[in-house]
Protein backbone atom coordinates (compact mmCIF):
# COMPACT_ATOMS: atom_id res chain seq x y z
CA UNK A 1 0.00 0.00 0.00
CA UNK A 2 2.78 2.44 0.97
CA UNK A 3 4.86 1.41 -2.06
CA UNK A 4 1.85 1.93 -4.36
CA UNK A 5 1.12 5.34 -2.86
CA UNK A 6 4.79 6.27 -3.19
CA UNK A 7 4.73 5.30 -6.88
CA UNK A 8 1.64 7.46 -7.41
CA UNK A 9 3.34 10.39 -5.67
CA UNK A 10 6.37 9.93 -7.96
CA UNK A 11 4.07 9.88 -10.99
CA UNK A 12 2.43 13.11 -9.78
CA UNK A 13 5.87 14.69 -9.34
CA UNK A 14 6.73 13.73 -12.93
CA UNK A 15 3.48 15.29 -14.13
CA UNK A 16 4.36 18.54 -12.36
CA UNK A 17 8.03 18.73 -13.24
CA UNK A 18 7.49 17.85 -16.88
CA UNK A 19 4.77 20.47 -17.34
CA UNK A 20 7.22 23.08 -16.13
CA UNK A 21 5.67 26.32 -17.33
CA UNK A 22 2.18 25.47 -16.16
CA UNK A 23 3.40 24.26 -12.78
CA UNK A 24 5.72 27.23 -12.34
CA UNK A 25 2.97 29.76 -13.09
CA UNK A 26 0.62 28.10 -10.63
CA UNK A 27 3.32 27.89 -7.98
CA UNK A 28 4.19 31.57 -8.44
CA UNK A 29 0.52 32.51 -8.06
CA UNK A 30 0.22 30.43 -4.90
CA UNK A 31 3.50 31.89 -3.62
CA UNK A 32 2.18 35.45 -4.08
CA UNK A 33 -0.95 34.61 -2.09
CA UNK A 34 0.98 32.81 0.62
CA UNK A 35 3.48 35.70 0.83
CA UNK A 36 0.57 38.00 1.64
CA UNK A 37 -0.92 35.47 4.05
CA UNK A 38 2.38 35.00 5.90
CA UNK A 39 2.95 38.77 6.09
CA UNK A 40 -0.52 39.35 7.51
CA UNK A 41 -0.11 36.44 9.94
CA UNK A 42 3.22 37.93 11.05
CA UNK A 43 1.57 41.31 11.68
CA UNK A 44 -1.26 39.66 13.61
CA UNK A 45 1.19 37.55 15.62
CA UNK A 46 3.40 40.54 16.41
CA UNK A 47 0.36 42.51 17.56
CA UNK A 48 -0.82 39.60 19.67
CA UNK A 49 2.55 39.32 21.38
CA UNK A 50 2.63 43.06 22.01
CA UNK A 51 -0.88 43.37 23.43
CA UNK A 52 -1.83 40.12 25.14
CA UNK A 53 -0.92 40.07 28.79
CA UNK A 54 0.54 36.83 30.07
CA UNK A 55 0.88 35.47 33.60
CA UNK A 56 4.58 36.40 33.57
CA UNK A 57 3.95 40.10 32.99
CA UNK A 58 4.64 42.19 36.09
CA UNK A 59 5.22 45.64 34.58
CA UNK A 60 2.90 48.63 34.87
CA UNK A 61 3.13 51.84 32.87
CA UNK A 62 2.17 55.05 34.66
CA UNK A 63 1.14 57.67 32.09
CA UNK A 64 -0.49 61.06 32.26
CA UNK A 65 -4.27 60.60 32.34
CA UNK A 66 -6.08 61.35 29.04
CA UNK A 67 -2.84 61.69 27.12
CA UNK A 68 -1.59 59.44 24.32
CA UNK A 69 1.37 61.04 22.57
CA UNK A 70 4.62 61.07 24.60
CA UNK A 71 5.00 64.78 23.84
CA UNK A 72 1.86 65.53 25.90
CA UNK A 73 2.42 63.13 28.79
CA UNK A 74 4.37 65.19 31.31
CA UNK A 75 4.72 63.81 34.81
CA UNK A 76 6.84 65.19 37.68
CA UNK A 77 9.88 62.99 38.22
CA UNK A 78 9.42 63.17 41.98
CA UNK A 79 6.36 60.88 41.70
CA UNK A 80 8.99 58.13 41.67
CA UNK A 81 9.65 58.28 45.40
CA UNK A 82 5.91 58.14 46.18
CA UNK A 83 5.29 55.18 43.87
CA UNK A 84 8.27 53.32 45.31
CA UNK A 85 6.62 53.34 48.77
CA UNK A 86 3.45 51.54 47.61
CA UNK A 87 3.22 47.95 48.81
CA UNK A 88 4.00 45.42 46.10
CA UNK A 89 6.25 47.72 44.08
CA UNK A 90 9.66 46.22 43.37
CA UNK A 91 11.20 48.80 41.04
CA UNK A 92 10.30 52.19 39.56
CA UNK A 93 12.07 53.68 36.55
CA UNK A 94 11.31 57.18 35.24
CA UNK A 95 11.44 57.31 31.45
CA UNK A 96 11.45 60.18 28.99
CA UNK A 97 10.28 59.28 25.49
CA UNK A 98 10.85 61.39 22.40
CA UNK A 99 9.52 60.40 18.99
CA UNK A 100 9.72 62.06 15.59
CA UNK A 101 6.07 61.33 14.84
CA UNK A 102 3.05 60.60 17.03
CA UNK A 103 0.86 59.40 14.13
CA UNK A 104 0.97 55.94 12.57
CA UNK A 105 4.26 55.65 10.71
CA UNK A 106 6.56 53.05 9.17
CA UNK A 107 9.69 55.05 10.03
CA UNK A 108 9.33 55.98 13.65
CA UNK A 109 12.35 57.08 15.66
CA UNK A 110 11.92 56.65 19.39
CA UNK A 111 14.40 57.73 22.07
CA UNK A 112 13.99 56.29 25.55
CA UNK A 113 15.75 58.23 28.24
CA UNK A 114 16.45 56.14 31.36
CA UNK A 115 18.70 56.81 34.36
CA UNK A 116 22.08 55.39 33.27
CA UNK A 117 22.37 53.14 36.31
CA UNK A 118 18.85 51.77 35.82
CA UNK A 119 19.19 50.50 32.27
CA UNK A 120 20.03 46.94 33.25
CA UNK A 121 17.15 46.95 35.73
CA UNK A 122 14.74 48.39 33.16
CA UNK A 123 15.80 46.14 30.30
CA UNK A 124 17.74 43.18 31.74
CA UNK A 125 17.02 41.17 28.61
CA UNK A 126 19.16 43.26 26.25
CA UNK A 127 22.43 41.96 24.86
CA UNK A 128 25.09 44.25 23.47
CA UNK A 129 26.08 43.17 19.95
CA UNK A 130 28.64 45.90 19.36
CA UNK A 131 30.15 48.53 21.72
CA UNK A 132 29.68 48.37 25.54
CA UNK A 133 27.24 49.52 28.19
CA UNK A 134 30.18 51.06 30.06
CA UNK A 135 31.05 53.37 27.16
CA UNK A 136 27.36 54.30 27.01
CA UNK A 137 27.33 55.18 30.70
CA UNK A 138 30.48 57.28 30.43
CA UNK A 139 29.20 59.63 27.76
CA UNK A 140 26.11 61.78 28.42
CA UNK A 141 25.00 61.98 24.76
CA UNK A 142 25.59 58.28 24.11
CA UNK A 143 22.90 56.05 22.66
CA UNK A 144 22.42 52.28 22.57
CA UNK A 145 20.52 51.45 19.38
CA UNK A 146 18.20 48.50 18.86
CA UNK A 147 19.56 46.38 16.01
CA UNK A 148 16.55 46.99 13.73
CA UNK A 149 16.78 50.70 14.35
CA UNK A 150 20.50 50.66 13.48
CA UNK A 151 19.95 48.51 10.40
CA UNK A 152 17.11 50.69 9.14
CA UNK A 153 19.20 53.86 9.46
CA UNK A 154 22.52 52.25 8.49
CA UNK A 155 24.16 53.29 11.77
CA UNK A 156 27.18 51.76 13.50
CA UNK A 157 29.17 52.36 16.69
CA UNK A 158 30.96 55.73 16.58
CA UNK A 159 28.41 57.39 14.29
CA UNK A 160 26.51 60.53 15.21
CA UNK A 161 22.97 61.11 14.15
CA UNK A 162 20.29 63.70 14.54
CA UNK A 163 16.58 62.90 14.76
CA UNK A 164 13.57 64.64 16.32
CA UNK A 165 15.90 67.48 17.30
CA UNK A 166 18.15 65.20 19.36
CA UNK A 167 21.80 64.63 18.38
CA UNK A 168 23.42 61.49 19.81
CA UNK A 169 26.60 59.46 19.58
CA UNK A 170 26.17 55.71 18.90
CA UNK A 171 27.88 53.83 21.75
CA UNK A 172 26.48 50.37 21.04
CA UNK A 173 24.08 48.16 19.14
CA UNK A 174 21.77 45.97 21.19
CA UNK A 175 19.58 42.92 20.61
CA UNK A 176 16.64 41.89 22.75
CA UNK A 177 13.91 39.24 22.78
CA UNK A 178 11.48 42.14 23.36
CA UNK A 179 10.68 43.44 19.82
CA UNK A 180 10.27 47.04 21.03
CA UNK A 181 13.84 47.19 22.39
CA UNK A 182 15.18 46.50 18.91
CA UNK A 183 13.50 49.61 17.52
CA UNK A 184 14.48 52.29 20.00
CA UNK A 185 17.54 54.26 21.04
CA UNK A 186 18.35 54.19 24.76
CA UNK A 187 19.86 57.47 26.00
CA UNK A 188 20.55 59.06 29.38
CA UNK A 189 17.43 60.50 31.02
CA UNK A 190 18.89 63.94 31.98
CA UNK A 191 20.34 64.31 28.49
CA UNK A 192 17.01 63.61 26.81
CA UNK A 193 15.09 65.83 29.24
CA UNK A 194 17.33 68.73 28.25
CA UNK A 195 17.64 67.89 24.56
CA UNK A 196 13.87 67.60 24.13
CA UNK A 197 13.26 70.80 26.07
CA UNK A 198 10.94 68.95 28.48
CA UNK A 199 13.29 70.11 31.19
CA UNK A 200 14.88 68.34 34.10
CA UNK A 201 12.38 66.90 36.56
CA UNK A 202 9.76 66.03 33.93
CA UNK A 203 9.29 62.55 32.50
CA UNK A 204 6.88 60.90 30.06
CA UNK A 205 6.08 57.80 32.12
CA UNK A 206 7.14 55.50 34.90
CA UNK A 207 7.65 51.81 34.40
CA UNK A 208 6.78 50.02 37.61
CA UNK A 209 7.73 46.42 38.34
CA UNK A 210 5.51 44.73 40.90
CA UNK A 211 6.32 41.68 42.98
CA UNK A 212 3.80 39.38 41.25
CA UNK A 213 1.18 39.42 38.48
CA UNK A 214 -1.59 39.43 41.11
CA UNK A 215 -0.32 42.77 42.36
CA UNK A 216 -0.75 44.52 38.99
CA UNK A 217 -4.31 45.73 39.49
CA UNK A 218 -4.14 46.72 43.19
CA UNK A 219 -0.91 48.67 42.65
CA UNK A 220 -2.27 50.39 39.51
CA UNK A 221 -5.40 51.47 41.40
CA UNK A 222 -3.41 52.74 44.34
CA UNK A 223 -1.08 54.80 42.15
CA UNK A 224 -3.93 56.44 40.24
CA UNK A 225 -5.87 57.03 43.45
CA UNK A 226 -2.88 58.69 45.05
CA UNK A 227 -2.33 61.20 42.23
CA UNK A 228 -6.02 61.76 41.36
CA UNK A 229 -6.14 65.25 42.83
CA UNK A 230 -2.66 66.27 41.70
CA UNK A 231 -2.07 68.71 38.84
CA UNK A 232 -0.80 65.81 36.75
CA UNK A 233 -3.18 62.87 37.39
CA UNK A 234 -2.06 59.45 36.19
CA UNK A 235 -3.49 56.45 34.43
CA UNK A 236 -1.73 53.17 35.21
CA UNK A 237 -2.10 50.01 33.13
CA UNK A 238 -0.20 46.77 32.55
CA UNK A 239 2.44 47.34 29.88
CA UNK A 240 0.66 45.36 27.14
CA UNK A 241 -2.74 46.90 27.89
CA UNK A 242 -1.02 50.29 27.71
CA UNK A 243 0.27 49.35 24.27
CA UNK A 244 -3.18 48.21 23.13
CA UNK A 245 -4.85 51.40 24.41
CA UNK A 246 -2.20 53.85 23.25
CA UNK A 247 -1.73 52.42 19.77
CA UNK A 248 -5.44 51.99 19.15
CA UNK A 249 -5.19 53.16 15.54
CA UNK A 250 -2.39 50.72 14.94
CA UNK A 251 -4.35 47.87 16.51
CA UNK A 252 -7.35 48.64 14.30
CA UNK A 253 -5.16 48.93 11.21
CA UNK A 254 -3.40 45.64 11.82
CA UNK A 255 -6.72 44.05 12.77
CA UNK A 256 -8.09 45.03 9.39
CA UNK A 257 -5.29 43.18 7.59
CA UNK A 258 -6.92 39.94 8.76
CA UNK A 259 -9.32 40.39 5.83
CA UNK A 260 -6.39 40.66 3.44
CA UNK A 261 -5.12 37.36 4.81
CA UNK A 262 -8.50 35.73 4.25
CA UNK A 263 -8.58 37.16 0.73
CA UNK A 264 -5.15 35.66 0.06
CA UNK A 265 -6.34 32.26 1.29
CA UNK A 266 -9.42 32.43 -0.96
CA UNK A 267 -7.26 33.43 -3.95
CA UNK A 268 -4.87 30.52 -3.38
CA UNK A 269 -7.77 28.11 -3.01
CA UNK A 270 -9.34 29.32 -6.26
CA UNK A 271 -6.03 29.28 -8.13
CA UNK A 272 -5.08 25.72 -7.16
CA UNK A 273 -8.63 24.45 -7.71
CA UNK A 274 -8.72 26.04 -11.16
CA UNK A 275 -5.28 24.67 -12.09
CA UNK A 276 -6.12 21.14 -10.93
CA UNK A 277 -9.53 21.24 -12.57
CA UNK A 278 -7.95 22.25 -15.88
CA UNK A 279 -5.44 19.44 -15.51
CA UNK A 280 -8.22 16.93 -14.91
CA UNK A 281 -10.17 18.17 -17.92
CA UNK A 282 -7.08 18.04 -20.13
CA UNK A 283 -6.33 14.50 -18.97
CA UNK A 284 -9.71 12.85 -19.33
CA UNK A 285 -8.35 10.31 -21.81
CA UNK A 286 -5.07 9.88 -19.99
CA UNK A 287 -6.88 9.06 -16.75
CA UNK A 288 -9.18 6.66 -18.62
CA UNK A 289 -6.11 4.91 -20.06
CA UNK A 290 -4.62 4.64 -16.56
CA UNK A 291 -7.89 3.10 -15.36
CA UNK A 292 -7.78 0.67 -18.26
CA UNK A 293 -4.28 -0.30 -17.14
CA UNK A 294 -5.57 -1.10 -13.65
CA UNK A 295 -5.48 2.21 -11.78
CA UNK A 296 -8.55 2.23 -9.53
CA UNK A 297 -10.71 5.21 -8.62
CA UNK A 298 -8.73 5.77 -5.42
CA UNK A 299 -5.44 5.72 -7.30
CA UNK A 300 -6.71 8.29 -9.83
CA UNK A 301 -8.11 10.49 -7.05
CA UNK A 302 -4.82 10.22 -5.15
CA UNK A 303 -2.84 11.14 -8.26
CA UNK A 304 -4.92 14.30 -8.77
CA UNK A 305 -4.94 15.21 -5.08
CA UNK A 306 -1.17 14.77 -4.77
CA UNK A 307 -0.66 17.15 -7.69
CA UNK A 308 -2.85 19.77 -5.98
CA UNK A 309 -1.14 19.30 -2.63
CA UNK A 310 2.33 19.54 -4.19
CA UNK A 311 1.36 22.70 -6.07
CA UNK A 312 -0.03 24.23 -2.87
CA UNK A 313 2.94 23.13 -0.80
CA UNK A 314 5.57 24.29 -3.30
CA UNK A 315 3.86 27.69 -3.59
CA UNK A 316 3.47 27.78 0.20
CA UNK A 317 7.16 27.10 0.84
CA UNK A 318 8.18 29.72 -1.72
CA UNK A 319 5.69 32.34 -0.47
CA UNK A 320 6.24 31.83 3.26
CA UNK A 321 10.03 31.75 2.98
CA UNK A 322 9.96 34.86 0.76
CA UNK A 323 7.85 36.65 3.37
CA UNK A 324 10.22 35.48 6.10
CA UNK A 325 13.27 36.74 4.20
CA UNK A 326 11.56 40.01 3.26
CA UNK A 327 10.40 40.83 6.78
CA UNK A 328 13.75 39.95 8.33
CA UNK A 329 15.63 41.94 5.72
CA UNK A 330 13.34 44.97 5.87
CA UNK A 331 12.94 45.07 9.68
CA UNK A 332 9.54 46.70 9.34
CA UNK A 333 8.38 48.60 12.39
CA UNK A 334 5.08 50.42 12.67
CA UNK A 335 4.88 53.20 15.21
CA UNK A 336 1.90 54.97 16.71
CA UNK A 337 1.70 57.41 19.63
CA UNK A 338 5.28 56.65 20.55
CA UNK A 339 4.94 52.88 20.82
CA UNK A 340 6.44 50.69 18.14
CA UNK A 341 5.37 47.35 16.75
CA UNK A 342 8.11 45.31 15.14
CA UNK A 343 6.75 43.02 12.42
CA UNK A 344 8.89 40.00 13.18
CA UNK A 345 8.15 36.55 11.70
CA UNK A 346 8.58 33.48 13.87
CA UNK A 347 8.54 29.70 13.49
CA UNK A 348 4.84 29.62 14.35
CA UNK A 349 4.02 31.73 11.28
CA UNK A 350 6.17 29.50 9.06
CA UNK A 351 4.50 26.32 10.30
CA UNK A 352 1.02 27.85 10.08
CA UNK A 353 1.74 29.07 6.54
CA UNK A 354 2.97 25.68 5.37
CA UNK A 355 0.06 23.84 6.98
CA UNK A 356 -2.39 26.32 5.43
CA UNK A 357 -0.81 25.82 1.99
CA UNK A 358 -0.99 22.05 2.43
CA UNK A 359 -4.63 22.19 3.52
CA UNK A 360 -5.55 24.57 0.69
CA UNK A 361 -3.86 22.31 -1.89
CA UNK A 362 -5.78 19.33 -0.55
CA UNK A 363 -9.07 21.19 -0.29
CA UNK A 364 -8.71 22.61 -3.80
CA UNK A 365 -8.05 19.12 -5.21
CA UNK A 366 -10.96 17.32 -3.60
CA UNK A 367 -13.59 18.17 -6.18
CA UNK A 368 -11.32 17.68 -9.25
CA UNK A 369 -10.07 14.39 -7.76
CA UNK A 370 -13.62 13.18 -7.21
CA UNK A 371 -14.57 14.25 -10.72
CA UNK A 372 -11.57 12.48 -12.28
CA UNK A 373 -12.19 9.27 -10.36
CA UNK A 374 -15.89 8.91 -11.08
CA UNK A 375 -15.83 9.36 -14.88
CA UNK A 376 -16.74 6.16 -16.72
CA UNK A 377 -13.79 4.78 -18.70
CA UNK A 378 -15.62 4.20 -21.99
CA UNK A 379 -17.07 7.70 -22.34
CA UNK A 380 -13.72 9.20 -21.27
CA UNK A 381 -11.90 7.26 -23.99
CA UNK A 382 -14.36 8.64 -26.51
CA UNK A 383 -13.91 12.23 -25.25
CA UNK A 384 -12.49 14.63 -27.84
Amino acid at each position, binding site marked *: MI*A*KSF*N*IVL*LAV*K*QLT*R*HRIRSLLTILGVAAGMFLFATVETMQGSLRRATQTTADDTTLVVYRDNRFCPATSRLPEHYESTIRKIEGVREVIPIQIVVNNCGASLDIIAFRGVPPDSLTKYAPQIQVLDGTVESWKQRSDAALLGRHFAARRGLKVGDRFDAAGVVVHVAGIIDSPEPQDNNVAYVHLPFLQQASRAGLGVVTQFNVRVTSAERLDPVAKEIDEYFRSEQAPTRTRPEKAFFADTAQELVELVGFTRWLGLGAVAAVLGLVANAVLLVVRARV*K*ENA*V*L*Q*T*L*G*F*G*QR*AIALLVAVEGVLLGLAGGVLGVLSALAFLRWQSITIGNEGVTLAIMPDLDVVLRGLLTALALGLLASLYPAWQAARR*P*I*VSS*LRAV
Partner: protein
Amino acid sequence: MSSYESFIRCRGVTKTYHKGNTPVTPLSALDLDVPRGTFLALMGPSGSGKTTLLNLIAGIDSPTSGSLHVGGVDIAKLKRGQLTKWRASHVGYIFQLYHLVPILSAFENVELPLLLAPLSRKERHRQVQVALELVGLGDRSDHRPSELSGGQEQRVAIARAIVANPALLVADEPTGDLDRESATQILNLLRELVREHGKTIVMVTHDPRAAAAADTVLHLEKGRLVEAADLNMQAA
Protein backbone atom coordinates in the same frame (compact mmCIF):
# COMPACT_ATOMS: atom_id res chain seq x y z
CA MET B 1 -8.72 -25.19 -18.67
CA SER B 2 -7.50 -26.89 -21.87
CA SER B 3 -7.00 -24.92 -25.07
CA TYR B 4 -10.20 -26.49 -26.42
CA GLU B 5 -12.31 -25.05 -23.65
CA SER B 6 -13.60 -21.52 -24.00
CA PHE B 7 -11.27 -18.87 -22.59
CA ILE B 8 -13.91 -16.25 -23.34
CA ARG B 9 -17.52 -17.30 -22.98
CA CYS B 10 -20.43 -14.91 -23.58
CA ARG B 11 -24.02 -15.97 -23.00
CA GLY B 12 -26.94 -13.71 -23.77
CA VAL B 13 -24.76 -10.59 -23.47
CA THR B 14 -26.80 -7.44 -24.01
CA LYS B 15 -25.58 -3.89 -23.62
CA THR B 16 -28.01 -0.99 -23.52
CA TYR B 17 -27.25 2.62 -22.80
CA HIS B 18 -29.21 5.83 -23.14
CA LYS B 19 -28.56 8.72 -25.48
CA GLY B 20 -30.74 11.35 -23.89
CA ASN B 21 -34.07 9.57 -23.43
CA THR B 22 -33.47 7.11 -26.26
CA PRO B 23 -32.25 3.62 -25.33
CA VAL B 24 -29.51 2.30 -27.61
CA THR B 25 -28.63 -1.41 -27.72
CA PRO B 26 -25.30 -1.93 -29.48
CA LEU B 27 -25.18 -5.63 -28.42
CA SER B 28 -28.17 -7.88 -28.16
CA ALA B 29 -28.25 -11.40 -26.62
CA LEU B 30 -24.83 -12.28 -27.97
CA ASP B 31 -23.32 -15.72 -27.48
CA LEU B 32 -19.65 -16.31 -28.16
CA ASP B 33 -16.89 -18.78 -27.29
CA VAL B 34 -13.21 -18.11 -27.88
CA PRO B 35 -10.61 -20.78 -27.09
CA ARG B 36 -7.38 -19.87 -25.30
CA GLY B 37 -4.51 -18.91 -27.59
CA THR B 38 -6.74 -17.65 -30.40
CA PHE B 39 -6.16 -14.53 -32.48
CA LEU B 40 -9.70 -13.31 -33.16
CA ALA B 41 -10.62 -10.42 -35.42
CA LEU B 42 -13.97 -8.66 -35.02
CA MET B 43 -15.21 -6.88 -38.12
CA GLY B 44 -18.32 -5.00 -38.99
CA PRO B 45 -19.64 -1.62 -40.00
CA SER B 46 -19.55 1.37 -37.67
CA GLY B 47 -22.12 1.02 -34.90
CA SER B 48 -22.25 -2.76 -35.22
CA GLY B 49 -21.19 -3.21 -31.60
CA LYS B 50 -17.67 -4.56 -32.11
CA THR B 51 -15.94 -1.97 -29.90
CA THR B 52 -18.68 -2.38 -27.29
CA LEU B 53 -18.03 -6.14 -27.28
CA LEU B 54 -14.28 -5.50 -27.03
CA ASN B 55 -14.79 -3.16 -24.06
CA LEU B 56 -16.99 -5.71 -22.30
CA ILE B 57 -14.42 -8.48 -22.82
CA ALA B 58 -11.69 -6.13 -21.56
CA GLY B 59 -13.70 -5.34 -18.43
CA ILE B 60 -13.79 -1.60 -18.96
CA ASP B 61 -17.56 -1.73 -19.41
CA SER B 62 -20.20 -4.06 -18.01
CA PRO B 63 -23.05 -5.79 -19.82
CA THR B 64 -26.63 -4.82 -19.03
CA SER B 65 -27.54 -8.51 -18.91
CA GLY B 66 -26.04 -11.92 -19.61
CA SER B 67 -22.90 -13.64 -18.40
CA LEU B 68 -19.36 -13.00 -19.58
CA HIS B 69 -16.66 -15.42 -18.44
CA VAL B 70 -13.02 -14.69 -19.12
CA GLY B 71 -10.52 -17.26 -17.88
CA GLY B 72 -13.26 -18.80 -15.76
CA VAL B 73 -14.28 -15.56 -14.01
CA ASP B 74 -17.75 -14.10 -14.64
CA ILE B 75 -16.60 -10.53 -14.99
CA ALA B 76 -20.19 -9.33 -15.47
CA LYS B 77 -20.68 -9.94 -11.74
CA LEU B 78 -17.58 -8.08 -10.59
CA LYS B 79 -17.95 -4.67 -8.97
CA ARG B 80 -15.98 -1.71 -10.28
CA GLY B 81 -13.10 -2.12 -7.83
CA GLN B 82 -12.86 -5.86 -8.37
CA LEU B 83 -12.98 -5.34 -12.12
CA THR B 84 -10.10 -2.86 -11.90
CA LYS B 85 -7.94 -5.38 -10.02
CA TRP B 86 -8.90 -8.14 -12.45
CA ARG B 87 -8.05 -5.93 -15.42
CA ALA B 88 -4.63 -5.04 -13.97
CA SER B 89 -3.48 -8.65 -14.02
CA HIS B 90 -5.54 -10.30 -16.76
CA VAL B 91 -5.96 -7.87 -19.67
CA GLY B 92 -3.72 -5.74 -21.82
CA TYR B 93 -5.44 -3.05 -23.92
CA ILE B 94 -4.01 -1.75 -27.20
CA PHE B 95 -5.61 1.44 -28.56
CA GLN B 96 -5.81 2.68 -32.12
CA LEU B 97 -4.15 5.98 -31.21
CA TYR B 98 -1.67 4.32 -28.78
CA HIS B 99 -2.66 6.65 -25.90
CA LEU B 100 0.84 6.87 -24.47
CA VAL B 101 1.38 9.46 -21.76
CA PRO B 102 3.27 12.17 -23.66
CA ILE B 103 5.45 13.41 -20.79
CA LEU B 104 6.72 9.94 -19.94
CA SER B 105 9.50 8.05 -21.72
CA ALA B 106 8.84 4.74 -23.47
CA PHE B 107 10.23 2.96 -20.39
CA GLU B 108 8.00 4.92 -18.01
CA ASN B 109 4.92 4.33 -20.17
CA VAL B 110 5.52 0.59 -20.17
CA GLU B 111 6.16 0.70 -16.42
CA LEU B 112 2.72 2.24 -15.67
CA PRO B 113 0.71 -1.01 -15.23
CA LEU B 114 3.33 -2.30 -12.78
CA LEU B 115 3.29 0.76 -10.51
CA LEU B 116 0.42 -0.68 -8.50
CA ALA B 117 1.76 -4.26 -8.51
CA PRO B 118 3.57 -5.66 -5.46
CA LEU B 119 6.96 -5.73 -7.18
CA SER B 120 10.36 -4.44 -6.19
CA ARG B 121 11.78 -1.62 -8.30
CA LYS B 122 14.43 -3.97 -9.64
CA GLU B 123 11.90 -6.61 -10.69
CA ARG B 124 9.67 -3.95 -12.21
CA HIS B 125 12.52 -2.59 -14.28
CA ARG B 126 13.49 -6.08 -15.41
CA GLN B 127 9.96 -6.80 -16.63
CA VAL B 128 9.77 -3.47 -18.47
CA GLN B 129 13.08 -4.13 -20.17
CA VAL B 130 11.95 -7.62 -21.22
CA ALA B 131 8.72 -6.20 -22.68
CA LEU B 132 10.58 -3.48 -24.59
CA GLU B 133 13.08 -6.02 -25.93
CA LEU B 134 10.20 -8.24 -27.04
CA VAL B 135 8.71 -5.47 -29.18
CA GLY B 136 12.16 -4.54 -30.50
CA LEU B 137 12.52 -1.20 -28.71
CA GLY B 138 15.07 -2.02 -26.05
CA ASP B 139 17.28 0.75 -27.35
CA ARG B 140 14.53 3.39 -27.35
CA SER B 141 13.50 3.20 -23.72
CA ASP B 142 14.50 6.79 -22.96
CA HIS B 143 12.60 8.28 -25.88
CA ARG B 144 9.42 10.24 -25.37
CA PRO B 145 6.39 9.36 -27.58
CA SER B 146 6.97 12.53 -29.62
CA GLU B 147 10.41 11.19 -30.54
CA LEU B 148 9.03 7.92 -31.92
CA SER B 149 7.31 6.99 -35.18
CA GLY B 150 3.68 5.82 -35.19
CA GLY B 151 4.74 2.18 -35.53
CA GLN B 152 7.21 2.54 -32.66
CA GLU B 153 4.57 4.22 -30.50
CA GLN B 154 2.22 1.33 -31.13
CA ARG B 155 4.97 -1.13 -30.22
CA VAL B 156 5.49 0.75 -26.94
CA ALA B 157 1.73 0.48 -26.38
CA ILE B 158 1.94 -3.27 -27.02
CA ALA B 159 4.86 -3.55 -24.58
CA ARG B 160 2.71 -1.69 -22.02
CA ALA B 161 -0.16 -4.12 -22.67
CA ILE B 162 2.00 -7.24 -22.17
CA VAL B 163 4.31 -6.07 -19.38
CA ALA B 164 2.10 -7.48 -16.59
CA ASN B 165 1.94 -10.77 -18.53
CA PRO B 166 -1.86 -10.89 -19.02
CA ALA B 167 -3.39 -13.89 -20.76
CA LEU B 168 -5.73 -11.70 -22.83
CA LEU B 169 -4.89 -8.81 -25.13
CA VAL B 170 -7.60 -6.66 -26.66
CA ALA B 171 -6.77 -4.33 -29.53
CA ASP B 172 -9.04 -1.64 -30.94
CA GLU B 173 -7.94 -1.01 -34.54
CA PRO B 174 -4.25 -1.34 -33.65
CA THR B 175 -3.13 -0.69 -37.23
CA GLY B 176 -5.76 1.92 -38.07
CA ASP B 177 -3.38 4.84 -37.80
CA LEU B 178 -0.31 3.23 -39.34
CA ASP B 179 1.21 2.94 -42.83
CA ARG B 180 1.21 -0.48 -44.44
CA GLU B 181 4.75 -1.43 -43.47
CA SER B 182 4.28 -0.48 -39.83
CA ALA B 183 0.88 -2.20 -39.79
CA THR B 184 2.45 -5.42 -41.07
CA GLN B 185 5.11 -5.27 -38.36
CA ILE B 186 2.47 -4.78 -35.66
CA LEU B 187 0.34 -7.65 -36.97
CA ASN B 188 3.42 -9.91 -37.09
CA LEU B 189 4.17 -8.94 -33.51
CA LEU B 190 0.60 -9.77 -32.43
CA ARG B 191 0.79 -13.13 -34.21
CA GLU B 192 4.10 -13.83 -32.45
CA LEU B 193 2.47 -13.09 -29.09
CA VAL B 194 -0.21 -15.68 -29.84
CA ARG B 195 2.09 -18.33 -31.33
CA GLU B 196 5.08 -18.05 -28.99
CA HIS B 197 3.63 -16.63 -25.81
CA GLY B 198 0.19 -18.22 -25.78
CA LYS B 199 -1.74 -14.97 -25.56
CA THR B 200 -5.38 -14.75 -26.58
CA ILE B 201 -6.02 -11.69 -28.71
CA VAL B 202 -9.32 -10.06 -29.62
CA MET B 203 -8.84 -7.37 -32.24
CA VAL B 204 -11.37 -4.98 -33.74
CA THR B 205 -10.55 -3.89 -37.26
CA HIS B 206 -12.04 -2.43 -40.41
CA ASP B 207 -9.08 -3.54 -42.47
CA PRO B 208 -9.47 -6.94 -44.23
CA ARG B 209 -5.66 -7.20 -44.48
CA ALA B 210 -5.39 -6.89 -40.72
CA ALA B 211 -8.22 -9.37 -40.25
CA ALA B 212 -6.38 -11.81 -42.48
CA ALA B 213 -3.60 -12.02 -39.91
CA ALA B 214 -6.06 -13.43 -37.36
CA ASP B 215 -6.93 -17.11 -36.89
CA THR B 216 -10.60 -16.31 -36.90
CA VAL B 217 -12.72 -13.46 -38.16
CA LEU B 218 -16.20 -12.70 -36.83
CA HIS B 219 -18.57 -10.18 -38.35
CA LEU B 220 -21.02 -8.22 -36.32
CA GLU B 221 -24.04 -6.34 -37.56
CA LYS B 222 -26.53 -4.46 -35.44
CA GLY B 223 -25.20 -6.05 -32.27
CA ARG B 224 -25.33 -9.65 -33.47
CA LEU B 225 -22.79 -12.07 -34.88
CA VAL B 226 -23.64 -12.77 -38.47
CA GLU B 227 -20.79 -14.90 -39.70
CA ALA B 228 -17.97 -17.02 -38.33
CA ALA B 229 -14.96 -17.61 -40.54
CA ASP B 230 -13.52 -20.42 -38.48
CA LEU B 231 -14.87 -23.71 -37.22
CA ASN B 232 -13.27 -23.22 -33.83
CA MET B 233 -15.76 -20.50 -33.17
CA GLN B 234 -19.31 -21.36 -32.12
CA ALA B 235 -21.34 -18.28 -32.84
CA ALA B 236 -24.94 -18.81 -31.93
